[in-house]
């Protein structure tokens, strides 16, 4: 009888601990792990050509769109810090990816939007040389793209 009781206590303890972990996960207390769960697309970011980068992103049948606005300087004096602002006016924009076509690794960044985030991103990028900056937008499961040429006076990738 005593021994049985002991087992029961152990079981209770174990069950309780497991319960706390489940509760913590459910209530979002383990936020950092969950937030950074998104995978880093190695095949896309390590691709050396625009075509391979797009393939890595899963982008196929990309249609040219005038509803993607790229705000960036025509001439960048310093290729290591080129400001780029992208606005997608395509309804239901799910993601925006930015590529510099002549960089050694063309894909610079991919942004995914959920829960009220607008299809807008502003950042600063490095460009090795004068090139098209291409933006690829995913909306409603389809892919759209636009490009703008930026002339680079001093490249910002080499050393």
């Amino acid at each position, binding site marked *: 009888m005593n021994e049985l009781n002991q087992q029961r206590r152990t079981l209770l303890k174990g069950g309780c601990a497991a319960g706390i972990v489940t509760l913590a996960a459910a209530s979002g207390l383990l936020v950092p792990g969950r*937030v*950074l769960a998104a995978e880093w*697309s190695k095949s896309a970011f390590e691709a050396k050509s625009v075509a391979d980068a797009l393939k890595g992103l899963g982008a196929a049948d990309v249609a040219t769109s005038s509803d993607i606005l790229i705000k960036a300087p025509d001439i960048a004096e310093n290729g290591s810090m080129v400001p780029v602002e992208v606005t997608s006016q395509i309804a239901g924009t799910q993601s925006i990816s930015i590529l510099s076509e002549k960089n*050694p690794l063309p894909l610079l*960044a991919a942004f995914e939007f959920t829960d009220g985030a*607008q299809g807008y991103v502003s950042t600063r990028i*490095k460009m090795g040389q004068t090139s098209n900056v291409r933006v690829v937008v995913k909306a409603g499961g389809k892919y759209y793209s636009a490009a703008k040429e930026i002339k680079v006076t001093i490249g*910002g990738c080499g*050393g």
Partner: protein
Amino acid sequence: MADMMKIRTQLSGDALAIKILMAHPMETGQRKDAKTGQFIPAHFIKNVAVGLNGKTVVAAQWGGAISKDPFLGLKVKGAKAGDKVTVNWEDNKGEKNSAEATVG
């Protein structure tokens, strides 16, 4: 280095503009050290997650060609004063940083 991150928020109606400035060297791995001639090892932020009240609204993947000390501007609808904006990043060496700001 790891504790430097600035978050600015601006609310107009329910449209929230978020501006984030992170401190990071963002080395591509393709740059050579002028003295030694050796490549400087890659060291860059790979994942950034921006949350509103604990819910991720923007998840970003980056390569090494985002400029040093990255700037990120975003827009979110449906926000209000008192909302919490969180930013988490992780780099290719597994270093992490996070910061939080309250919408004023």
